[in-house]
């Protein structure tokens, strides 16, 4: 499926704003992203599997709060940075 990548993470994707990745859940998708772009996952999700405070993930334009919800191959996933102050 297609995954939109925000600017702070594009150093991992060689500048690509959209990449392909697979996964039956967001957690699996992030694992796959990390295989393709090593190091990306830990900047987004902490070592206990929690989304970092200033990151957000949208699936089909709805904000996701859990990483275990199922995905389908046609889903549109957007990684996004939240406001984090100056």
């Amino acid at each position: 499926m297609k995954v939109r990548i925000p600017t702070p993470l594009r150093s991992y994707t060689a500048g690509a704003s959209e990449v392909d990745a697979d996964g039956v859940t967001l957690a699996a998708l992030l694992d796959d992203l990390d295989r393709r772009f090593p190091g990306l996952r830990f900047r987004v999700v902490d070592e206990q599997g929690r989304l970092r405070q200033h990151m957000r993930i949208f699936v089909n334009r709805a904000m996701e709060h859990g990483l275990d919800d199922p995905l389908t191959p046609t889903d549109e996933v957007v990684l996004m940075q939240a406001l984090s102050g100056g």
Partner: protein
Amino acid sequence: MPFDSSASTSLLVGTRKGLFVLSCDERDGPWATSEPHHLGHVMQHVVADAREDGVVLAATRTGHLGPTVLRSSDLGATWTEASTPPAFRTGDRLERAVDAVFWLTPGHVDEPGVWYAGATPQGLFRSADHGDSWSSVDGWNDHALWETWAEYPYEGTPDGAMLHSINVDPRDRNHLYIALSSGGVFESVDGGADWRPLNQGVFAEFLPDPDAEFGHDPHCVRIHPAMPDRLYQQNHCGMYRLDRPGERWTRIGDNMPPEIGDIGFPVELHPRDPDTAWVFPMDGTDVWPRTSPDGRPAAYVTRDAGESWQRQDTGLPERGWLTVKRQAMTTDDADPVGVYFGTTGGEVWASADEGESWRCLARHLPEIFSVETVAPRHDPR
């Protein structure tokens, strides 16, 4: 822009918005300030490895992204990210996650490639491969008393409770000191497998027990490289010295002028003379402005292990409300020793004559978190 590796002295200036490198051929000559490295990244602590030419590690994160460590083996021409950054174990019993890597310390000279990292929350991590992969120091992070000693889950310290001032005894790779803000100073004699508090004699006005074993707020602790039995500490509540095997810290800040007081963040040492140390006092009265006392900035130096202190303000502004954080002051290895500090207002100041006179090397940088020299500072033995 790569660092100028031919420069006689270079400073790694870690700021809230990136890394800047200041370089010179002669310390009293012109200095050049680099373009920012990693602009916009929070560069908490950037440290050169005196054991390995050209190696620099940086503890960093961004406003959005999680913490990591960057490594350069060519003095900044290229950087790589740690393949396994400092992190608690997945499934950690307290569900801890590293929020920031706060402090970096190279390991013992006989252990090339070993580094230690202190974090928020107050975890300790170790790398044995030059900073590429990091693992938990379980003897600390899973110590039976960790929750008692550390600030967790509530962190009262501004910007989060942190583990800092990781000191490795140059005579014994297994003899370690660490400090918690807050929590106190702790010692390990077995490479980090076990720890005990080392805070006797240290005042903590915020603790009900005047003889509390832990819970203190060391701001910066330094072991003297030439006399490793001597430690200096700048605490939230005073300046101290400890001569081992003694167990009780002596408040050497009582010898400071009372109108200045003995509150501050950094304490920095002379690389060869164990009796000489520098501090940069701040206002710890009233609501704790943490700026230069009375708006008159000065470093203070002791030449007699804290028995007396001399003011050093030549060249500094007559009026100024400077704040110098715990990692933002350092010394070099030259003779006479160079002393450097950076301010939260983005200025870098230097002295090429052991603090007798100062000049400003850079202005208008972002908030400065750390200042470290590139050149080997001293023989760690």
